[in-house]
């Protein structure tokens, strides 16, 4: 699960990593006076925000509110912007790149660093990058930071700061199940302090401890996002018309591909996870009802769970939550035929064939 930038920065602060002073707002009116200039940043789970017009600089409160009103509600890289981060713009002397990532190729945690922070980093030659793998049996050692500092060409106070940041990053990987912590840039400020100006943090999808959510300050998300975080449901707010609920990211992606191939557009999506519970499924239906896409497409491949049980949960959910928009169900697995017939008897659109079910959902989206 990827954290929003402001969540990531809350988490970093808890681990003693300096981040620019700032706060997140959902409405331009909530922007209040602070040392100017500020940076207004769209909070979406996607890169290239600056290029797409999702990052602006403001010198006054009016400019800040104007920028925020332009950004909130935008369709940025296919995602709806619901919040902006208002952050103090800091004076920087040098911009570095520093990251720690769980690398499936080496099966290790690897630290990556480059003296060239910013968008150039991806085009750096290999010689400009340093990769320091961590031996799992040994864990983090101070030698890691020494190697990185030496490569970045920093010494003295800056080197000590790099060591503190690296150690904090490893603690986050160990304690908070982070699989990616990336600072681009990690800047040496004009007063020589080291600050994470931009940060990307991703947490292991498979085991999200609830206290991480508290550590990130996700409670301030409110509503749908706070609930999905708490239940471990992956939620992405695409801008289209067909809401999708699926179990497993792969199946969800496949479902979205089929909708797209039919000419439809995907709206809010929920991945309830491979081993979803009755509660998670019901909550997904409640949340989808609140988001109110033109149609909901529930595509679940249950494996060993009885489809009839799942269908009962779905049916009672639909009745209980007063669904007043179409829902198309495809529930495959144990006893799928009985479950399909049950839906048919109760007047709920259902098909066991993925293309057929997706086509039904597509037609509703065009009605």
């Amino acid at each position, binding site marked *: 699960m990827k954290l929003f930038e402001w969540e990531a920065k809350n988490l970093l602060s808890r681990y003693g990593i300096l981040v620019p002073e700032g706060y997140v707002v959902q409405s331009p009116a909530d922007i209040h006076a602070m040392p100017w200039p500020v940076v207004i940043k769209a909070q979406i789970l996607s890169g290239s925000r600056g290029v797409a017009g999702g990052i602006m600089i403001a010198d006054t409160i009016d400019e800040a509110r104007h920028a925020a009103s332009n950004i909130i509600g935008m369709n940025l890289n296919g995602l709806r912007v619901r919040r902006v981060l208002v952050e103090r713009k800091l004076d920087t002397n040098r911009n570095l790149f520093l990251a720690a990532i769980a690398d499936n190729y080496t099966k290790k945690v*690897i630290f990556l660093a480059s003296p060239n922070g910013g968008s150039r*980093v991806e085009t750096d030659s290999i010689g400009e990058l340093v990769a320091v793998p961590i031996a799992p049996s040994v864990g983090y050692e101070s030698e890691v930071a020494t190697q990185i500092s030496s490569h970045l060409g920093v010494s003295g106070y800056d080197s000590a700061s790099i060591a503190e940041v690296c150690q904090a990053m490893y603690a986050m990987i160990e304690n908070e199940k982070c699989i990616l912590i990336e600072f*681009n840039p990690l800047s040496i400020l004009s007063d020589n302090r080291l600050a994470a100006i931009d940060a990307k943090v991703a947490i292991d999808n498979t085991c999200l401890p609830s206290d991480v959510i508290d550590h990130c300050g996700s409670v301030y998300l409110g509503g749908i996002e706070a609930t999905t975080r708490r239940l471990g449901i992956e939620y992405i707010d695409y801008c289209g018309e067909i809401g999708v609920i699926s*179990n*497993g990211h*792969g199946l969800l992606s496949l479902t979205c591909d089929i909708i797209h191939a039919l000419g439809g557009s995907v709206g809010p999506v929920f991945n309830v996870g491979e081993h979803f519970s009755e509660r998670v499924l019901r909550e997904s239906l409640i949340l989808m009802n609140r988001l109110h896409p033109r149609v909901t497409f529930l595509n679940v491949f249950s494996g060993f769970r009885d489809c009839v049980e799942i269908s009962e949960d779905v049916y009672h959910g639909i009745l209980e939550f007063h669904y007043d928009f179409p829902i198309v169900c495809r529930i495959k697995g144990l006893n799928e035929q009985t479950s399909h017939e049950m839906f048919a008897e109760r007047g709920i659109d259902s098909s066991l064939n993925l293309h057929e079910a997706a086509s039904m959902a597509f037609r509703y989206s065009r009605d």
Partner: protein
Amino acid sequence: MHSESIWNSRVVIMCSMIESNLLIVDELIDFGTNVIALISPGSCQECYRNVPVQRTLATSLRKNDIDVLLILDFEGDIVKIFHDTVGSQLSIAIIACPVSAFEMTRILDIIAESNLVVLGPESCGIMAPSRFMLGTIPGLALRDGEIGLVCTSGSLTYESMATMTEDGLGLSMIICVGTGAIIGTSICGALSCLEEDEETKKVVLIAEYNEIDTEFMVEFIHSHVSKPVVICRVGGSLPPLPDKMGHSSVILRKYHSATRSIIRLRENSCISFANSLSEIAVLLGS
């Protein structure tokens, strides 16, 4: 991981004795999988369907010769569980439940010197419809055939199996490598297994866009797989790439690409790309 050695494996299943787990145990026993023990630390049961229920893996390893460990869920420290396997003759461990990337680094480090193959986390296992079943692959009405399937997440595996069967394709073996930032056996390991499997004549690889480095995969297949391969990548339609691991994933890819030794290409390899699951049958000429 050789299919021949899997055939008559002695299997131990670690799980809590809840209904959903017992359904899987039932399915495996009914299929004919040689389940010799269950490990359930919190259970008072001594036996389930004539299979002894033991409390710890260490006890089970002492009492039995075990080839395969299937973990449906676990209590306590998963890393410690793998510590207990050191020195045993265990050849395959399938982790069907979630395990964090950090714990996976430690598990894979512990077993690095052994011959143990780990599938997962969140792997639904390995299955050959006419030969063996190890994992949580439900008893779909599969056709026996000559196509080997490699997949990542569980539900995507189920969906792929169902679609291929509906399209008239017969499967020789299915390997689900699982999903997560760090997994045990990689897609390459699974492809190598299918290359060695005599029943498999063609191979299908289904994964999400962000789960495979296509350039590397093509290079690997060209050098290690002589059988025709169809690759189907899903998730290409999604507007942004929310799972993209920042700049780091791009940098790492470049870094590994530069540090890998140059692979000698086979001349007779055949790779094609399917845009959807339904296109697989067309590309395989069925």
